């Protein structure tokens, strides 16, 4: 199937009863926000600054509402149907990874309702960023993992690849807006996709990392890596697979809400006990935990690395702490 770009607005308008989120430029920041018209979309840019996890796992969300002294607790309204339009394959794969956390044992109703109600329309990543390394983490610029529909930009049109029933629903709603893709279109898409894969120059073989990490527990490598770390939340907040949150009660007048907000294992308060004891007292332990969590603990629990190679943590780290550099140091086993 194929969608001419001049029909994009109609395609979006034809989607029935779903809120559409897409990459939008808010000031200088590219992030996924609800869009009202096709013109809001910024589909040509690289990865959004803030990953689209912010849609299914908002940075701040009200879990419960209650009044002081009342015994009546209200939960948030269940989320409606949403479409994430133009999500990059790496960010879609990240959602599959995070799904593990919110569904093991007790299910998290807020996250899972949003995920169940979301349709992911991917946009093949034809111009990967300098620090993209998705191909090393089991994905790729045209990976379809987690997507319902994949679009490939052919210049004047998008080639559509229907991947699931949810994707099919969107195509049916679009009806005659779509046309049959020719063999030449498919060949062109294939060529562009191959070109994109080659453009990804940063590579690493993560296969040995998990096995090597335990022996490096007391290695000076962690002190070395974390020496320049500022302890800010950039790498974790912008990570599409980081999922930690804090819960706080916030009161205004007599009304309170129990909120959850993103939290970061790089903050010292994250593990600080009320007694004042901190099991991860310095940035050395926190950096070590971040790497171990992504490449060892998470793999133990959910059989998948908690990194999709989107490159955001490298792009945005103020002091050039580079996860690929860390992994290669772990791999070298020399520290």
């Amino acid at each position, binding site marked *: 199937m194929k969608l001419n770009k001049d029909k994009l607005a109609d395609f979006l308008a034809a989607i029935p009863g779903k809120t559409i989120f897409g990459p939008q430029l808010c000031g200088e920041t590219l992030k996924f926000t609800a869009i009202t018209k096709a013109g809001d979309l910024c589909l040509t840019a690289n990865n959004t600054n803030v990953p689209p996890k912010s849609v299914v796992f908002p940075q701040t969300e009200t879990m419960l509402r209650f009044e002081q002294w009342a015994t009546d607790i209200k*939960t948030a309204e269940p989320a409606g149907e949403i479409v994430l339009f133009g999500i990059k394959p790496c960010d879609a794969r990240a959602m599959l990874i995070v799904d593990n956390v919110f569904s093991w044992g007790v299910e998290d109703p807020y996250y899972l309702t949003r995920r169940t109600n979301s349709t992911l329309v991917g946009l093949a990543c034809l111009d990967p960023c300098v620090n993209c390394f998705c191909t090393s983490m089991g994905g790729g610029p045209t990976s379809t993992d987690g997507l319902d529909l994949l679009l490939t930009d052919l210049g004047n049109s998008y080639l559509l690849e229907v991947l699931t029933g949810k994707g099919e629903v969107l195509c049916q709603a679009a009806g005659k807006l779509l046309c049959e893709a020719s063999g030449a279109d498919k060949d062109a898409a294939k060529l562009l996709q191959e070109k994109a894969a080659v453009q990804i120059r940063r590579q690493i073989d993560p296969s040995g990392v998990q096995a090597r990490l335990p022996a490096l527990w007391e290695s000076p490598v962690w002190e070395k890596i974390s020496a320049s770390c500022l302890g800010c939340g950039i790498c974790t907040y912008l990570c599409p697979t980081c999922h930690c949150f804090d819960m706080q009660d916030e009161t205004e007048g007599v009304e309170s809400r129990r909120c959850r907000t993103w939290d970061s294992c790089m903050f010292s308060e994250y593990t600080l006990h009320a007694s004042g004891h901190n099991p991860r007292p310095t940035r050395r332990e926190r950096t070590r935990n971040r790497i171990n969590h992504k490449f060892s603990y998470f793999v133990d629990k959910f059989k998948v690395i908690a990194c999709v190679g989107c490159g955001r943590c490298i792009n945005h780290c103020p002091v050039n702490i580079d996860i690929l550099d860390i992994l290669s140091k772990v791999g070298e086993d020399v520290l």
Partner: protein
Amino acid sequence: MNTHPYIPNFATVQDTWYETYGDRCIKTFKVGFDDEEVRDSWTHLPGQCAMIGVLGTGESMISISCSPTEGKFLRFSVMRAGKVTKALHELEAGDKMTVRGPYGNNFPIDEWKGKNIITIGGGIGQAPLRPVIEYVRAKKSEYGELTVVYGARTSADLCFKGEFGELARIENTCYHLSVDVKEEGWPHYVGFVPALLMEVNPSPENTIAITCGPPIMINFVLQNLKKLNFPDDQIYTTLENRMKCGIGKCGRCNAGNLYVCKDGPVFSYATLKNVPEAFA
């Protein structure tokens, strides 16, 4: 009755008393669920925890310090330390707190039938051990010897002070108390808990050792249990870490690849000795 994992149940405080006094005082709350259905369906075993809280302030993971054999109520002994525990300390009989849970695993206490049990506690660390003691006490004929080793900085810092005398009257049960520094009129041991353990000198034969207390105490108790030739799988401890959700989502309570809230809080030393962060 709600099945939403984050909506807590209301429980009314039936009775409260102070275990210790001072800046970081410990107050015990005896509470009962308001909803009859919750009260009847609630089951927990020694070692498990609950998220208790005050609406508008927040929640805190606290170990349940009573055994299900004691009756249809819950007990929590809470040290006044952070925002939530300070708010909890304001509660008196008749006030409401919120409770969700029970969370975490329990001591495999039913597997220990026929065995001797020794508990080694320090300070507030006695709270998760108390339900074990009560459980074994209630089913005494099914267990071997019960030995309680417990210490605190001073005699005023000991929790559950009134309950030890009773233990002495139970068959095959003994207790050993300690304080860190010498006090006027103190009839028991003076010194640290790990040293008291060596004095007690328990045999590892058919015996399970459970310890809980400050990290430094646990470390030395473990060393001493090894000196006493306790095998790793006969040593149990219960960990605590900062928690927010209690159900393995919020991320912060991990020690290595274990989530304390779900995989724990009870672990055998055989498991923990391979977890580098366990005693951090």
